């Protein structure tokens, strides 16, 4: 009977395609939109994720995210270093700098000033160059995606010069950094050099990065720093969560993406329910024949269930492949780096696809169960 059910399903190819596309559309939309949404949220805490050496971030108590920064006095660094449980503490500078690209246009970039001595604050993966060259005058490292935005259509190369806030900067290393929320071009340079690029004097420290000594946990040390200095000290994870939460609470991004996802699900349900209902309706006479010649209701339900299972599986697979292809190809564009398709979203969208097809088949089964088998005798 199940083979007959499948033959019935595949017979009307247009309807089968419509059903599959309905599920595929919803799956694609959910995966694509949720993937981009999560990618954007990740960008909110990208700098934190790029510096795994530090497990505590210290900042002014008024700081809410990574972009609104209140500078700290240089003396705060010494106070943090003096807190019990702190293994080391280094300064981090973050600012915005204007650069001129190779085609003459001006672009906004993120400038990160890292500790002069230890170079803590530089992303872990060095794509090209030697980080020791950052000790040279005017030396900067640039993110890989940022390089392709500054020097469009050029292969990554070292010793290229660029105007950074109208001052000369020389690229001595290319690093793999996470894309940021506001700008995809990020320069890394020594802290002292960064202050020169921004023409700022003393007391310009954006953050203090610290490491707990391992005897006390990062949470305990952060608490101690708060108590001793009056500054806001958070573990890396807590600060990342805070930065992400800020985006969720203060931008229309979740509502916007949520609306698109909801629409995708509603359209998916509507299309699939309508087409599946239509499919069952068109085959109602044939189901009535099967019922008249002795097929029990539960077998008819099994037939419809198998049909819906196949539609759901094929539609989900097509949608998921579409989403995977999107992220694969879009990821090659520097503007889209960092967007990805987590397996959790694939599972969630699978659940939604199953929900859509279950709802559609339940609506269709309602007709099927109450079909009058006497219908077969009517002309």
């Amino acid at each position, binding site marked *: *009977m199940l*083979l*007959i059910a499948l*033959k*019935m399903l*595949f*017979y*009307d190819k247009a309807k089968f395609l419509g059903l599959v596309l309905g599920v595929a559309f919803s799956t694609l939309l959910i995966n694509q939109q949720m993937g981009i949404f999560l990618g954007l949220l990740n960008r909110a805490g990208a700098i934190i994720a790029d510096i795994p050496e530090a497990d505590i971030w210290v900042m002014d108590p008024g700081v809410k995210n990574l972009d609104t920064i209140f500078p700290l006095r240089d003396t705060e660094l010494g106070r943090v270093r003096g807190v019990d449980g702190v293994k080391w503490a280094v300064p981090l500078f973050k600012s915005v700098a204007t650069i001129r690209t190779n085609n003459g246009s001006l672009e906004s970039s993120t400038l990160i000033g890292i500790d002069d001595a230890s170079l803590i604050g530089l992303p872990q993966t060095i794509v090209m160059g030697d980080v020791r060259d950052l000790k040279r005058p005017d030396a900067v490292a640039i993110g890989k995606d940022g390089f392709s935005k500054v020097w469009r259509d050029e292969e990554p190369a070292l010793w290229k010069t660029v105007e950074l806030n109208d001052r000369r900067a020389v690229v001595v290393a290319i690093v793999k950094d996470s894309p940021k929320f506001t700008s995809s071009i990020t320069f890394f340079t020594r802290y002292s050099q960064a202050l020169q690029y921004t023409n700022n004097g003393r007391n310009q420290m954006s953050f203090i990065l610290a490491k707990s000594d391992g005897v006390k946990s990062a949470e305990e040390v952060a608490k101690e720093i708060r108590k001793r200095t009056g500054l806001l000290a958070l573990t890396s994870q807590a600060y990342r969560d805070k930065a992400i939460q800020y985006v969720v609470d203060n931008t229309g991004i979740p509502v916007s993406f949520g609306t698109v996802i909801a629409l995708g699900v509603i359209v998916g349900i509507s299309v699939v329910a309508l087409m599946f209902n239509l499919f069952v309706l068109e085959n109602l*006479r*044939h189901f009535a*024949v*099967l019922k*008249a*010649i*002795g*097929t*029990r209701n539960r077998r008819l339900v099994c037939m419809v269930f198998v049909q819906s299972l196949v539609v759901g599986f094929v539609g989900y697979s097509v949608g998921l492949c579409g989403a995977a292809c999107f992220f694969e190809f879009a990821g090659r564009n520097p503007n889209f780096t960092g967007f990805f398709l987590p397996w959790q979203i694939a599972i969630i969208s699978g659940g939604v696809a199953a929900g859509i097809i279950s709802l559609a088949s339940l609506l269709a089964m309602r007709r099927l169960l109450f079909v*009058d*088998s*006497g219908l*077969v*005798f*009517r*002309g």
Partner: protein
Amino acid sequence: MTQKPDARRIAPQEGSAVVCRDVFKHFGSGQARVDVLRGVDLEVPLGRTTFLVGPSGCGKTTLISVMAGLLTSSQGNVELLGEDITKMWKGRLVDFRSRNLGFIFQQFNLIPALTASENAAVSLVVQGYTLASAKRISNQLLDKLGMAKNRDRYPNQLSGGQQQRVAIARALAHNPRIVICDEPTASLDAEAGHVVMQLLKDVASGPDRAVIVVTHDSRIYSFADFIASMLDGKILEYGPSEVLIPLLKQS
């Protein structure tokens, strides 16, 4: 010569395929209530072909639906092969129907997604046969019905007469004891209608079987052994075809 609708006076020695006793059936309620069957008494004998004839709306289709257990009667009893189906549990009735009844419909009702061979095999698949083994059996029947060359064709590739042969094969593949046909020749021309009726008579008839045919088509009355004439939900006349046919032609 015409007999009154007293079932007990018909075919007493042959055993009964179907016995209807005082069967009523109505649809709707209150002012919308329509009484379709108004006390039908009928005994359909085994080993014979019985025709149900009458004008449109007289209740023929409703009566065969009740006989087949597709509709439940509002009142009265229906016995199929000695078992009272009005008292039968629904699941058992479905099994009983799948084993003992075969249906042939006016619109053929073949499943367009299945080939002739697969359509004919459906009644066996319903009984639990695999499609492959069911097709082996149904193919023999299709060959017997002159459809050997058309086994792998889909319904839309077959003529009306060929489709009806597939429907006959489907109705008979599981070897049912009662075959119920609803206007089996209505969609066919006279020649194809005669061929189909002859095939039905050849293949479906037997001493322990019964064929019940609902028809308007007076051209095929000659294939009947017994004819029951209906009017306004009642059996008006019932008797051997050689007696009933002249009377029906007169009326």
